[in-house]
C-alpha cells in the first residue's frame, strides 16, 4: 500500500480546469491532472479531509484542511465543491403538512424557496448532537438546517413534532 499524499499549507498549488476538474502541482514536482474533489466527511467535517480522485475514481491525494491551503488553491477547491455538493440550507419553514404519513415541507433556503416531500419522517430527518438537522426528500435530495436554535419560533414549532 503506497503512502497517502497529504496536501497542506503550500506543498501544492491547485488550479481549476473545466467543470469540476482540478490540476494539482505538488511541491515535489508531481502533477495530478483532472482530479475531482470530494468530501470524505460531507456532514461532520465539510472543510476537512477532501480527497482528490482521478478520472477512474482513484485517490491521488488528500487535503487535510481547506483552511490551511494557499488562498488561490483554496478558492479553486471550494468552487468545485460548491458546485458538486448541493445541500440547500433551510433558513425558514413556511408550511409543514402531514398526510398519510408523508410530510410536505415548504421552506426558504439559501438558494431560494422550495417545496419537497419526505417519505419516512422517522428515518429521513436526522438531528445531529450539535443541533444541525439533515433531511432527505423523496427524490433523495439533501437539505440542512444549520442550527435548530437559529430557526425562528414559527419554523421550530412547525418542525418540532418531527425532530
Amino acid at each position, binding site marked *: 500500500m503506497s503512502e497517502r499524499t497529504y496536501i497542506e499549507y503550500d506543498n501544492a498549488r491547485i488550479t481549476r480546469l473545466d467543470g469540476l476538474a482540478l490540476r494539482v502541482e505538488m511541491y515535489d514536482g508531481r502533477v495530478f491532472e483532472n482530479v475531482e474533489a470530494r468530501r470524505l466527511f460531507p456532514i461532520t467535517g465539510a472543510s476537512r479531509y477532501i480527497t482528490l480522485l482521478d478520472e477512474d*475514481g482513484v485517490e491521488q491525494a488528500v487535503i487535510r484542511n481547506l483552511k490551511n491551503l494557499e488562498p488561490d488553491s483554496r478558492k479553486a477547491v471550494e468552487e468545485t465543491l460548491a458546485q*458538486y455538493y448541493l445541500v440547500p440550507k433551510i433558513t425558514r419553514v413556511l408550511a409543514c403538512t402531514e398526510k398519510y*404519513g*408523508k410530510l410536505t415541507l415548504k421552506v426558504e433556503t439559501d438558494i431560494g424557496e422550495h417545496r419537497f416531500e419526505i417519505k*419516512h419522517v*422517522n428515518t429521513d430527518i436526522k438531528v445531529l448532537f450539535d443541533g444541525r438537522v439533515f433531511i432527505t426528500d*423523496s*427524490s433523495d*435530495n439533501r437539505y440542512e438546517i444549520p442550527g435548530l436554535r437559529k430557526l425562528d419560533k414559527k419554523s421550530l414549532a412547525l418542525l418540532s413534532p418531527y425532530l
Partner: protein
Amino acid sequence: MIPEDILSTAPLPERFASQAAAMLLEGETPLFTIVGDLDLKGRYNESALVVTDRRTLAFDQYHAGGVYVAEHAQVDKAFVKRMYGNAVLRVALRGEAPRDIFRFTYSVASLCDAAALFAENIAGGGDVRQEFDIVKATFDKKKSFCPKCGRALGQQGAACISCTSKSTLVRKFAKYVRPQLKLMVLCLALSLVTTAMALAPPYVTKTLVDTVIPNKDLNALLMLVAILLSVYIVQYTIGAVRGYFMRIAGDRIVAGLRNDIYEKAQYLPLSFYDKTSTGSVISRVSGDTSTLQAFMLRITQEAIIQFFLMIGIIVIMFLMNWKLTLLSLTPIPLVVLGARYFGKRIAPVYRKIWRRWAAVSSILTDTLPGVRVIKSFTGEQRSAEKFESYNNEWLIEDRKAAKLSNIFPSAVTFFVTCGSLLIWGFGGKWVIQSPQNISVGMLVSFISYAAMFYGPVNFFATLNDTYQNSLTSAQRILDVIDAEPEADFGKGNLVKKVKGKIEFRNVNFSFDRIKKALTNINLVIEPGDIVGIVGTTGSGKSTLVNLIMRFYDAYEGEILVDGVNIKELDLESYRSKIGYVQQEPIMFKDTVFRNIAFSLPDADVEQVIHAADVANAHSFIARLPDGYDTMLGERGVGLSGGERQRLSIARAVLKNPSLLIFDEATAAVDSETEHLIQQAIERLISGRTTLMIAHRLSTLRKANKIVVVDKGEIVEFGSHDELMALKGKYFKLIEIQSMSEKIRAGKEAERFE
C-alpha cells in the same frame, strides 16, 4: 407550437413553451419535455429541456439568449454527471469541449439519463421512433411512483395503497375490534349496570340523613344499610367479571395487531429494511400495540360508560336542585379549554418520546447480537456509554411529558375542588337560611354526586393525552401495515418448471438515485450454464443476483427467466425455484433439523438427512451430542462458519431448486472446509443453471462462463480460457488471486508443520 399533451414531467412554463414554439424549424416535431428545478448556478429556478426529433433545447437564464440548442446530429457525447443533491446534463458537440446545458435535482435525473441516451443514439444513426419508445418507458417508470404521496408503486398506474384507502384511523383499526364486539357489548352492558348502581348510594344517603336518622327509625336504617350492602356486592362482582372479559378482549385485539404487523413485516421489500431499523419495527410490534390497545378499550368502553355516568349525574343533580347544579358546572369551561391547550402541548412530546425510544431499541438490536465484536475490541464501556446517552435523551423527553401530564390532572383536580367549595359555601348558606328548600341530606348527597361527576370530567379532559399518545403509536403501526409490500403482480401465475435460461435486457438499477449500482446490463445465460460472477468489492455482483432473487424490483429494463419477465411470475412460486446460499449463512434459534427443514417445512427425517449428506454436513451433525436436535443459539451460535455454511447448503439441497445462486459461499472458510463445501456444491449444481459469485480460482474453473462486473457494468463475458487469453480485467483478477492463494497455502502448510 408545443402540444399541451406532450410527454412531460410537469406543465412547461409558458415563457419556455412560447420561446420553444417560435424556434421550431419546418417539419420539426417536439417529442418530450423535462421541467427542471435548478438553474445552472445551482439556485432554485425554472428551467426546462425540450427535446424534438432533431434537437435538444435547454432553457436556462444563464444561457446566452436564455436557451442552448444542440442538434442531435452534432452530438458527440451526452451524459448526466451525478453530483451530491444535484446533477447536470453535459453535452459535447463534435469538435467541442463538453458543457453543462441543464442542471437539476434528482427528481428528474433518470429522465435526463434517457434524454442524453436519446440524443447520443440519434447522433449514432438510431431510429427516432425506437429511441423515443425507450424514453416513453422511462417516463412511464416515473409514473410508477404515486404522484400524491411519492411512494413507489409495484407497477406503473397501480393504485397506491396509502392514498386510495381514505378510511380514517378508526376504520382501519376497527377490524381488530370487530371480532371482539360481542364480548365488548357484554362488558358495556355490565358496565351500564354497575354505573346505574353507582348512582344509587348518594340518593340513599340523602334519605338516611334527612329522614331515617332524624326520625331514629332503626328498622329503616337496617334496611337501607342492607340495600347499600347488596348494591355494593352486585356492583363489585359485576365489576370483576367485566374486568376479566375486558382483559380477554383487549389481549385478543393486541395479539391480532401484533400478528398483522409481524406478518406484514415479513412481506415488506428489502428496500424498507434498508431505511428502517429493525429496532423501530420491534418497538412497533411490542410497545405501540399495547398503547393502542389501551386506547381502543378506553374509547370503546370507558368513554361510553363515563358519558352515561356524566349524563345520569347531571339529570339527577338538576332534578334535585338546578341552582347547585349550575354552580358545580362552573369550572367545566376551564377544564375543557385546558384540555385543548394540553393536547397541543403534549402531542409533539409524545412523538419525540417515541423517536427517542426507537433509537434506544435500535441500539439494543444493533449491539446485543454483536456482543462478541464488542468484547473483542473491549468496547463494553463505549457501548454502555452510547446506550446511556440515548437513554438519557429518552429520559429528557419523558420528563417533559411527565411534567405536562401531571401538572394538568392536578390543575383539573384543583378546579374541581374549587367547584366543591362553591357547593359547600353557597349550598351551606342556603341550608342555613332556608332549610325548607334545601335539606342537609340533599347537600351531602349533592356533594357526593358532584365528586362523582368530576370523575367523567377528568376522564374526558385527560382523554386527549391518551389519544395523542395512541395517535403516535397508531401512525407508527400504520407505517408498517400500510407500507407497500413486495410487488407481486404475477400472483397466481405459478412457475411449474424452470429450464434455467436467464436474460438481462438493458437493466439499470440504483439503490438511491445518487449512484447507479448497475448500468446497461445485457446478459444471456443458457439452461445448465455454470456462471462465475467476478469483480472487485462493490462492483455490483451481489446486486445482480439480488435482482434475480427479486429482492429489489425498482429497476429499469427486463429480467427474463425462460423468456418470461420475472415480474410477471408469482413471487412465492418463483423464489421457491431458486436455491440461494449466502456468504454469511443465517441460522435461526432453533434445532439443526428445523434449520435445514426451513426450506421445506414438510420434509421428512430422511429427506433432511439426505440433504445434510449431500451438503457434507451429516458427519459433523452426527458428532454433535444432540445430533439433529442440537439447539442453535441466535444466528447459529454454537457452530463454526464452515458448519453453518454446510447447513445452508443442505437447506438449498432440500429445496431441490432449478436455479442456484451462491454468493461467495466459500469466501470465509479455510481450505479444508472449502474443499468439503466445494464437494457439496458440485453434487448440488449438476444439471442446474448456477450463478456463483466467487473469488477463488478453484471455484471459477468449474464455470463454463464468466461474467466480469466492474463499476456496475459487465466488462467481460466468456469462458475462463477466452478471458485469460483476453488478458483483461479477469486475467488481472486471477493473477492476484493465484498469488494470494499461493501465500495462503504456504501459510496453512506452515501452520500444519
